[in-house]
């Protein structure tokens, strides 16, 4: 392992540590008592609240709370959920992770293939009617709230036209002994609408970055030189110009992930997708602080890791960025 990589990994760890500290401070500076709200929504007795307060350590001085919180995090223990008592937050997160990875992975795949391709076509035909309308369409998608687009798609595609399932990840009526291909097709059919919703509302980012990066590359001397040598336009585009844009496109990953994480809260709750986003939405409804804090920490961790991976990829592609 190179010293550069070690330094970058340490920096990522430090960023994550500060993020966790910020989350703790956030919980404490918020006016009011996290547990006081429980009283209004449900029949919870005073003694019950006092017991919960003791359980979550809210009756202790702030520094002691911080110590408990941090040692818990260090041991990989995020406490007990209020809504799903007595299940542990980490167990809940782990059980919901696969569905979110599937959804997020599919959106990532679509945005970084279709989005990249559209951005390249736009840059090649810069200023054309195609370029202008793609920009406008992408901006309109970016301006669309995902919860609304999801609802509209469900209303028309699922409930009115009966083309695709409206919610969940699998069909509950599917026989238990269904073959693997049948199951895969079932999940795929459930996947289409949520992926479409998340992708339409975020693909503009990939398209814009790809277009801008390629336009910047087109102005460089080596591209002109490649053209002057009589290489085919196709070869200049994909073999020379596009390759260099991979570097700025990689950094986009770190930028784009927080948007995906926030978007999945809305899209998963609209589609009842059994992932982390709908878990966060449930936590909001139930005022389940430990659970919401856990999802926020996982989200922050994912963003930090994505940034780190992007930088490592960056260094693999472009050796200049890893000073020895």
């Amino acid at each position, binding site marked *: 392992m190179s010293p550069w990589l070690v330094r970058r990994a340490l920096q990522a760890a*430090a*960023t*994550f*540590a*500060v*993020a966790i*500290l*910020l*989350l703790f401070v*956030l*919980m404490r500076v*918020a*006016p*009011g*008592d*996290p547990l*006081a*709200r429980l009283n*209004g929504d449900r029949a919870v007795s005073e003694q019950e609240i006092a017991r919960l307060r003791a359980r979550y350590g809210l009756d202790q001085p702030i520094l002691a709370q911080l110590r408990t919180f941090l040692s818990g995090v260090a041991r990989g223990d995020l406490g007990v959920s209020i809504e799903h008592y007595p299940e542990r937050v980490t167990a809940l997160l782990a059980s919901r992770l696969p569905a979110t990875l599937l959804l997020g992975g599919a959106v990532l795949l679509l945005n970084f293939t279709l989005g990249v391709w559209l951005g390249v076509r736009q840059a090649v035909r810069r200023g054309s009617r195609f370029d202008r309308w793609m*920009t*406008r369409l992408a*901006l*309109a998608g*970016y*301006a*669309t*709230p995902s*919860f*609304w*687009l999801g*609802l*509209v798609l*469900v*209303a028309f595609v699922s*409930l*009115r036209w009966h083309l695709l399932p409206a919610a969940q990840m699998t069909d509950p009526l599917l026989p238990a002994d269904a073959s693997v291909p049948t199951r895969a097709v079932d999940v795929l059919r459930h996947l289409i609408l949520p992926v479409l919703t998340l992708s339409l509302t975020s693909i503009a980012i990939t398209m814009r970055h790809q277009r*801008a990066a390629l*336009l*910047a590359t087109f*102005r460089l001397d080596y591209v002109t030189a490649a053209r002057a040598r009589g290489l085919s336009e196709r070869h200049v585009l994909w073999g020379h110009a596009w390759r260099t844009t991979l570097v700025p496109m990689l950094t986009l990953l770190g930028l784009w992930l*927080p948007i995906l*994480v*926030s978007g999945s*809260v*809305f899209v998963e709750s609209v589609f009842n997708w059994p992932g982390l986003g709908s878990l*966060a*939405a449930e936590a*909001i409804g139930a*005022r389940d*602080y430990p659970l*919401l*804090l856990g*999802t*926020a920490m996982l*989200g*922050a961790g994912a*963003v*930090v890791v994505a*940034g780190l991976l992007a930088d490592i990829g960056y260094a693999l592609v472009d050796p200049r960025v890893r000073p020895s």
Partner: protein
Amino acid sequence: MIGSFTDLFERAWRHPSGRWGVFALAALALAAILAPAVLPDPGAMPDVVAGTTSPSIAHPFGTDQLNRDILSRVVSGARVSLSVAGLAVLVSLTLGTCVGLLAGYCGGWVDAVLMRIVDAALAIPRLFVMLLLLLVWERIPLPALILILGTTGWFATSRLVRGEVLRLRHEPFVMAAEGLGGRAGRTIFRHLLPNAAGPVLVAATLGVGDVILLEAGLSFLGLGIQPPTPSWGGMVFDARPLIVTAPWTALFPGAAIVVTVLAVNLVGDALQAALDPRSA
């Protein structure tokens, strides 16, 4: 470098999409101002028995589940949404500019500490920060919502301003101002700030669109603007059970969000193109 702000606005105006954005925003603002005189009262007595009715001449956008006129609710939603977003961006712009100036101008450990915090804050998805802060209220007061939207949105701006300051610091005119013994305050406000203002203006414009979307999302989750004040996100949430039988209850408020955010982003886009013509 742009000559002046009038120059920037002129060039943005010549950009076709910028003009459309300005027209759309002006129409929205006009509607929001004139609406109370023309349209039925958005807070009119709810009528559960009559329920929702489809679009008609009396109610061009139809009425919602409580028989309230959707058009007037969408228009008063515009007033709330635009003013909340404008004020929130003002807060985050001020904070981001101050922190960015401080980090860029002081450098050294001040810069290192501030930017580490900004890095970490940027790693936490903004939605979660706001959710954790908003969850404690029984009824979220509007000023608190604006402050929370504002104080969670300045991190990227501070990075931008810091970058601009670092870029400008070694420009001859700034070095000359410092070499001539100009005070730090004068250097910052006369030389650094005006020259960094362009990119900041673009970021702020695009930030308004982001905040409108965020506020709509929060209101959809019940943690934004509180009923009975009409909000677009809240209206879409209320329309959830009616989406098949009465789609107009969801379509119009959602379309209002799309049109407004798109208009704001088109203006931001045009400003960006005017600032850096090569990117267009």
